[in-house]
């Protein structure tokens, strides 16, 4: 990456794997799980969070010398809430069906701990460009996990990706279904998301033993 210095590139790359917001920092689980039954919803959620994080980190970083530390939480909440209102209105205007599926979870981006966490930990103490990269990096790390969960849940639960059947037709019994494969309805119910995240954590920590928790 010639465009970015190595240090800056790490801001983006770190959260994608070894410092992932969901699997390592345990932030932003709430919205990650509820909307991942379909790949499309996961992707839209990821894009929304990337937008809110990128812009939000820049705004907070610009304001970091102006905000009195006593009321910073409220100031941060107002910035996020404004950005989320923008996202919500855009979704309602251009993807109404999807915004119905996401329902209150768009609003819950406000209390997504990743956003507040990064504001507190990074944007309040760093320059605009680096905060922007940090925001994008963390939101991407979040998005990656979301898309992985969405991919497996939709593929195994409904046999589709983005609503397009990829494993054959369950009614006409073509493709995989012709040899007796059945959709796993279990993947559609909410608790399955938790188990998928648990398995992702398991895989990640088996590959990188340094991440294993003591006790």
């Amino acid at each position, binding site marked *: 990456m010639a465009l970015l210095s190595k240090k800056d590139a790490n801001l983006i790359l770190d959260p994608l794997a070894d410092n992932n917001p969901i699997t390592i920092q345990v932030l932003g689980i709430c919205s990650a799980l*509820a909307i991942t039954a379909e790949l499309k919803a996961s992707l839209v959620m990821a894009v929304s969070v990337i937008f809110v994080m990128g812009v939000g980190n820049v705004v907070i970083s610009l304001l970091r010398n102006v905000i009195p530390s006593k009321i910073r939480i409220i100031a941060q909440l107002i910035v996020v809430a404004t950005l989320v209102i923008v996202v919500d209105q855009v979704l309602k205007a251009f993807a109404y069906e999807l915004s119905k599926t996401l329902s209150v979870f768009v609003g819950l981006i406000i209390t997504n701990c990743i956003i507040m966490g990064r504001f507190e930990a990074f944007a309040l103490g760093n320059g605009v460009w680096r905060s922007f990269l940090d925001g994008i990096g963390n939101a991407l790390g979040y998005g990656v996990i979301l898309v992985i969960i969405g991919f497996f849940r939709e593929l195994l639960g409904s046999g589709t990706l983005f609503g397009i059947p990829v494993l054959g037709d369950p009614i006409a019994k073509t493709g995989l279904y012709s040899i007796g494969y059945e959709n796993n309805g279990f993947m559609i*119910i909410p608790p399955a998301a938790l188990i998928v995240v648990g398995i992702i954590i398991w895989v990640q920590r088996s590959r990188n033993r340094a991440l294993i928790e003591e006790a």
Partner: protein
Amino acid sequence: MLEHLELFFKSIFIDNMVFAVFLGMCSYLAVSKKVSTAVGLGAAVIFVLAVTVPLNWLLDQYLLKEGALVWLGPEYADYNLSFLSFIMFIATIATMVQLVEIVVEKFSPSLYNSLGIFLPLIAVNCAILGGSLFMQAREIPTLGLALNYGISSGIGWFLAILAIAAIREKIRYSNVPAPLRGLGITFIITGLMGIGFQSFGGMLTGDNEPPEGEQPTTAEQTKEKELIKKEIEEDDKAVSYNEVVKE
């Protein structure tokens, strides 16, 4: 009375904040290592939900909803400020949490000592904002029901964090595979508990359909319904197919 009872059990068991809609997962995972702290946080969540949900209900009813400003005069009847609800709700929550903290500190130092440290944490707990947003999305009709909803979903959250904290205290003595230790196994246990809680699903939907507006709104549940509908359609198709074959 019956609708209060129904909403109460529904919010605790069927639409449980943690197991059905994953709200407040961050603090649920972070503060569930010990039962005593879990109890403290759970109590604080019940308390704050009981205060903020009715308050936001009033805001929604008299300020934000379409036509809510009609009490100012007939010319305001067309105003719809509901796009402002996120910012209003979160501002109310943040202020209320601060206010509650100050009041509790002044009048009940012992309660403050047990709840105090958790109160600031709660302003950004998604369960609190989620409570208000679900209250709005489900169009809860009266202030009493809103209060009921706040308290009962708080109790649901309390139950969930209490249960997981107790399990985590015990699981320390079990031989969990190393990469799963800590976070991983907590996720999987929560998932299994969630499946258990799913079995409450049929409890209140025995003979009467839930009233309009109280229909579950999460993505999963709509999806589930679609799936059921699809299955029914498939069955219909199969039947008609069989008939065609017979003919």
